[in-house]
């Protein structure tokens, strides 16, 4: 299945992916309207280290520990994409604790969780982080995994 992969060799740490993610999931059509003077809650986050940058988002694991640990059945696998049903989520954060990649995070209101759903639940069409990456560091491809 097609997944989002990050080549840290080409990641510049520009953080554009975070803003593109936040915009894609804002429901707005004009970025300044969506993001101006807002704290953003992106589902992809750039980890920065000593000369190494790496954007991290949900790996969409084949055997996802977050789904197993969900106490309400809010997390499910839909055609390989791990999705969250926020109507069922009670905000217990168990998934956040168990995710080995740190890719599940509280939503902006703090009551439920959010995670990357490969832009299947917004109007972007393809992952916004991939589309907006200036150096092809983030790619969306099927590596047969």
């Amino acid at each position, binding site marked *: 299945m097609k997944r989002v992969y990050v080549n840290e060799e080409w990641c510049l740490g*520009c953080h*554009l992916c975070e*803003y593109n993610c936040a915009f894609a999931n804002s429901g707005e059509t004009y970025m300044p309207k969506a993001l*101006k*003077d807002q704290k953003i809650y992106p589902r992809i986050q750039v980890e920065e280290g000593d000369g190494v940058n790496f954007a991290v988002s949900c790996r969409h694991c084949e055997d996802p520990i977050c789904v197993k640990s969900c106490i309400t059945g809010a997390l499910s696998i839909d055609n390989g994409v791990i999705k969250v049903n926020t109507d069922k989520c009670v905000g217990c954060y168990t998934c956040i604790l168990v995710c080995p990649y740190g890719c599940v995070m509280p939503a902006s209101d703090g009551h439920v969780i959010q995670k990357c759903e490969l832009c299947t639940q917004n109007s972007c069409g393809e992952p916004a982080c991939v589309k907006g990456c200036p150096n092809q560091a983030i790619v969306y491809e099927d590596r047969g995994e």
Partner: protein
Amino acid sequence: MAINYMVPEYEVVRDPQRCIACRVCERQCANEVHSYDPELNCMRSDETKCVNCHRCVSLCPTHALKIVKNNDTFKLNSNWSMQAITEIYREADTGGMLLSSMGNPNDYPIYWDKMLINASQVTNPSIDPLREPMETRVYLGKKPDHVERNSDGSLQINTPPQLELNVPIMFSAMSYGAISYNAHESLARAATELNTYYNTGEGGLHKDFYQYGPHTIVQVASGRFGVHKDYLNAGAAIEIKMGQGAKPGIGGHLPGTKSVGDVARTRMIPEGSDAISPAPHHDIYSIEDLRQLVYSLKEATAYKKPIIVKIAAVHNVAAIASGIARSGADIIAIDGFRGGTGAAPTRIRDNVGIPIELALASVDRRLREEGIRNNVSIVVGGSIRNSADVVKAIALGADAVYIGTAALIALGCHLCRSCQTGKCNWGIATQRPDLVKRLNPNVGYQRLVNLVNAWQHEIMEMMGGMGINSIEALKGNRLMLRGVGLNEKELEILGIKHAGE
């Protein structure tokens, strides 16, 4: 504190309605123009540091930025321009020579733009390159003067070594050191895919790039950096660099700060030491000396590789080329006064050399008059900006062209002309690892391939319009050119008629 006489050349204009303070501009600017004020939650800029490279403008997700020419001005003066005054301030501040990069930007005539191309109408049919064969392949090297046959009548094949190009465009010499590893990889891979050549410049060939050897021209310059037997044999041809269009008559200087790690290793010099190329080759003071080096290199490579001699276009270029054509060289490369550089003294770059169009026309004529045009192929560079320039160059007698600046622009260069600072925000003219990685060669090589493919289509369209179906038939075909706004002398040197004639 001393008085700061400088006025910022550019102004950073930020649209506060659009800026979302994402800080992408701040993170992307190696010149540290942008900064974030957490208390005001807004971006600030220090335009004194801005070189107008447009990295921030290109990456701003909300298009909130633009860079404009600062209209703060000294008292207007037609003689003492703002530039003339600030250059004096700068020299008075530092006592040092002014340095510049890329090609001469000044307002000299551009002869390409004063020549127009012919097309067929009624009496001679034009050719549609999409439906009919159209040949853009060229071979560079010495051509035999006559056919020789064996006693049984079969042909003797004794063609000297040739370079085969699918399209008459090569990437000109830019050294590893002046430009980054990723820029070199992009050029090498693009040349391979396009079946043409890129040129190492004088910095040697990184061991990772020996695999692209069949599409590499290896250069031997006055510093002889990185030159050894395997290097000479790795390339498809060897270029002796006698001169460079941006800085004829002077050598080169890669500062120790750029001569780090693999750059120093590839040049075979100690890390951190300045790489100084002398102005002359210390073993070449005559055509006879040049001939010795040409034949030394041929000897070292078993006479299997053509030897290119590259010179800058200067006043007596035709006589110099005539000498080179008799030196045993297979190809002459001529670099015009607008050719680029990673660093050159400003006064040299802006005032030395002659236009490539005039140099090419006079060299081609001189070699034909002397009956030695077939001894050598002619390659020209020094601001070939588009496919029409290529067509005009070929019609003036070139066999192929070198593109350097155009190739870098394809890789993202915005001609900010600040290469000498080593802080290229586009990852091209820098060795800083965090900046080098900004040029992903997977992206870069594809952009170069696209550029040359586009030019090839355009060249075929223009040739088809003239009713010509091969580069061979266009070569030196001056009847396909007409001058506009040129005086008698210029037309005479170019060897073309005026429009309307």
